[in-house]
């Protein structure tokens, strides 16, 4: 295969050509309520050729039949001819890499029979179902993906990577008359099957959370001091700030460009934020991105100042910066675009006790249930929350929706916890029509003053 790929690249008439070949085996088991919905295995194998003619544009060809790479390379060149770039497209330089990586799992999930995976999902489903009579519907998912990826380009890069991923997750829907509440949790790993065993506790907690929410009162709308747990803080920094750091968004949008000027103040001096695809075994780890740029730590905010952003080779060249290792594609059907890897708020110095002890009336908001951002405005729902009264965690509340302006909110972060945690949840990030892309998020607890919370 390697010879054929390299021969095809040699024949290309374009200024730059890259070939990505992906082979993916997936197993998925889903229980819904009492029923098994899915228990199957799929094989997906295909490739993509991307060619650039600098003063015209990109041509992209994706395919399943790998027999005739030469024709595909030519087709991509023909496609690139169609473009009419108003100015030449340049790519930031990246040292060519030759590297073949393999992974070793303690228990390779590819050797586990489907029966065992089904039994595992069924067990977690049972744990949720049997927790309470108030649980009216459930979902329990087991899914694994093993990807073998080849990336080669006309500059001499040739990389083979293996990427395993296993996810288990449970959803519980509890009902009491018209009152319907739900809770969800999942766990993902890039390591072996053994990591998803014995997670009854995760399933039980999901069920417990949904049932507890039935008795929670809706929060009273108003302005509160909010302490966000690691999960909510992680999702917040990814959604509300991280996407603005993606350079393709910035250079397409004059308003965003103005907003994201280097050196601009983004919070108090205690705030530090980075994106890092090089940390082993995290969900968003990609040692080389889908253009062959090695992963590294990219500081985005340091001491409260904007210091960096995320790039593909094209956006980096366009903005006169360095490629950052963030050009990623969800699979071989798509060209890479600028994406996050593992995004985090760096650890701080305040203990959780110190963070809440002086709060007379506040909210401890946990987990994230979804959110929307539009430039600097965001709105997030937390999964569940508790009131903080006189420095202590008090009763559970629901319908906690945090809304606000990114800059004001970052500026209002006045304490950062010393309990940093990477979140190993199984969700994915969506951008354009590429969803879901595995990303990692991490943060300690953070405290934010004057957060507007909607509600009744």
């Amino acid at each position, binding site marked *: 295969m390697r010879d054929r790929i390299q021969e095809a690249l040699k024949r290309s008439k374009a200024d730059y050509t890259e070939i990505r070949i992906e082979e993916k085996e997936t197993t998925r088991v889903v229980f819904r309520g009492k029923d098994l919905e*899915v228990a199957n295995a*799929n*094989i997906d*194998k295909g490739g993509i050729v991307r060619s650039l003619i600098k003063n015209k544009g990109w*041509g992209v060809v994706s395919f399943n*039949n790998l027999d005739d790479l030469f024709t595909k390379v030519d087709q991509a060149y023909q496609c690139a001819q169609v473009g009419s770039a108003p100015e030449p497209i340049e790519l930031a330089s990246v040292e060519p890499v030759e590297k073949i990586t393999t992974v070793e799992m303690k228990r390779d999930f590819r050797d586990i029979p489907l029966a065992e995976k089904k039994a595992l999902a069924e067990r977690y489903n049972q744990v949720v179902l049997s927790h309470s009579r108030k649980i009216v519907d459930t979902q329990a998912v087991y899914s694994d993906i093993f990807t073998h990826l080849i990336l080669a380009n006309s500059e001499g890069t040739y990389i083979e990577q293996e990427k395993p991923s296993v996810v288990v997750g449970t959803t519980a829907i509890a009902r009491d008359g018209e009152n319907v509440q739900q809770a969800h949790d999942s766990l993902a790993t890039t390591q072996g099957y053994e990591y998803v065993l014995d997670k009854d506790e995760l399933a039980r907690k999901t069920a417990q959370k949904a049932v507890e929410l039935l008795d929670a009162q809706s929060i009273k709308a108003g302005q509160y001091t909010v302490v966000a747990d690691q999960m909510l803080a992680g999702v917040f920094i990814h959604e509300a700030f991280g996407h603005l750091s993606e350079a393709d968004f910035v250079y397409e949008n004059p308003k965003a460009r103005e907003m994201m000027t280097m050196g601009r103040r983004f919070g108090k001096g205690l705030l530090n934020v980075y994106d890092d695809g090089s940390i082993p075994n995290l969900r968003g780890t990609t040692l080389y991105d889908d253009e062959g740029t090695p992963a590294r730590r990219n500081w985005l905010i340091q001491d409260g100042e904007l210091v960096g952003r995320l790039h593909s080779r094209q956006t980096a060249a366009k903005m006169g910066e360095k490629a950052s290792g963030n050009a990623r594609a969800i699979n071989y059907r798509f060209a890479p675009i600028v994406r996050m890897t593992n995004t985090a708020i760096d650890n701080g110095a305040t203990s959780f006790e110190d963070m809440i002890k002086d709060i007379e009336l506040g909210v401890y908001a946990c987990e994230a249930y979804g959110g929307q951002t539009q430039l600097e405005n965001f709105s997030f729902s937390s999964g569940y929350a508790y009131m903080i009264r006189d420095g202590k965690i008090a009763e559970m509340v629901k319908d906690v929706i945090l809304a606000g302006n990114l800059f004001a909110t970052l500026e209002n972060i006045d304490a950062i916890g010393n309990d940093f945690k990477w979140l190993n949840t199984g969700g994915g990030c969506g951008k354009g029509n590429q969803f879901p892309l595995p990303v990692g998020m991490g943060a300690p607890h953070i405290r934010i003053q004057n957060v507007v919370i909607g509600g009744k």
Partner: protein
Amino acid sequence: MDILTQLKKQAEQVEILNLQNEKTTIEYEANQLKNCAVAETKGTAVRVIRNGRLGFAASSDDTAMEKLAANALESAAYGDKAPFSFPEPEPAPIVRTFDKAVAELPIARLVEIGQEMLDLILPADPSARCNIILERSLISANIRNQKGLDVAFKTSPLSLGLEIDRVEGDDVLILYDQLGTTVWEKDYLAFARRLVEKLKMARIITHIKPGKMPVLFAPSGALALGLPLSEGLNGKAVYKGTSPMAGKIGEKLFDEKITIIDDGTIDGKFASASYDDEGVPHHRNVLVEKGVLKSFFYDLKTAAQSGVKSTGNAARGLFNPPEPSLTNFVIQPGQTPLKDILAGMDEGIIVEDLLGIGQGNMISGAFSNPLALAFKVEKGEIVGRVKDLSIAGNIYDLLMNVTAVSKEAQWVYNTVHAPYILISEMNVAGKS
């Protein structure tokens, strides 16, 4: 050995789907030609029933047929009891879904069509930014099963999508429309001209006092009414007991001006074909006739679970088993000319487009959406665009009393054919 022949020896029932798709996409972003892509997809999906249990597996690697067969059998070993059988071969209506003129449309011609759209829009409004996606595909599907069913069909979908945004100060206007067809359409720019008319009309911004008023749903806005209905008519929702219409066949649930048809046999439309994705012939299914609920729509599995026959509504992608799905969704045009409907409106709005359709508790029929594009009607005349309004209601209440359904109807979102529908009194919320 052919995978069907092989699996027939190992399972009672076998179904093989071969799918091939070649898609060419041209993209304009902000009036600039940005991207040209060709995507070829090829794969095989297998369903088997062994010892009465259903298994599924799929693969896009045609060198891995052995593994595909093994995966399907393993899936069946732990699968649910299959309540149905794969179908016998049956004659089907002839439906035109393939046109050489579309299948062989050169890339250069697609680029040209994109330019024609720009030439139509930019002179009318130089501050418009157009995102255009032109896509033509050639899809071949072949379904075979152990009963000798062997159906093959080719379709040549062409889709022209046009999004126009115009930002002026705090005013953001976003318009979208598309043409979807599988046979060459002579007047392929008609939809773009329609959009230009809206773009011009949207220049005039006017106000309306929120409150109760007549609301006229344009064909594109009628989706807000149609989508919850399509969920409720789905045989799976009926079987699971979540559809509000479950158990109400033969009852008059809607105004007698409402007739709804699912029709996969219309020539040239996106969801048309002689057969569905399980090899069952497509039909013209009357779901609601003059307000009376007549039928739900089913695939083989949900039909068997409900003790009825498949209505030919199975749809699937390569990597997922079939699910019941509407083909072309037709809300029958009515008797009243649009101009007469407008003439009868003293003060009200036309709803063209809503934000966030499909979110929330859709199955219950409830909706609550901000209006993305709406026009004010005053004494029978369209006088301008109204902003910052929202409507909410429940379609099961609203469609019980429909004041008028227009004679004129349009294809929107490729597979929906809808007239203008007038609700004489609805609450329109907004800042007064």
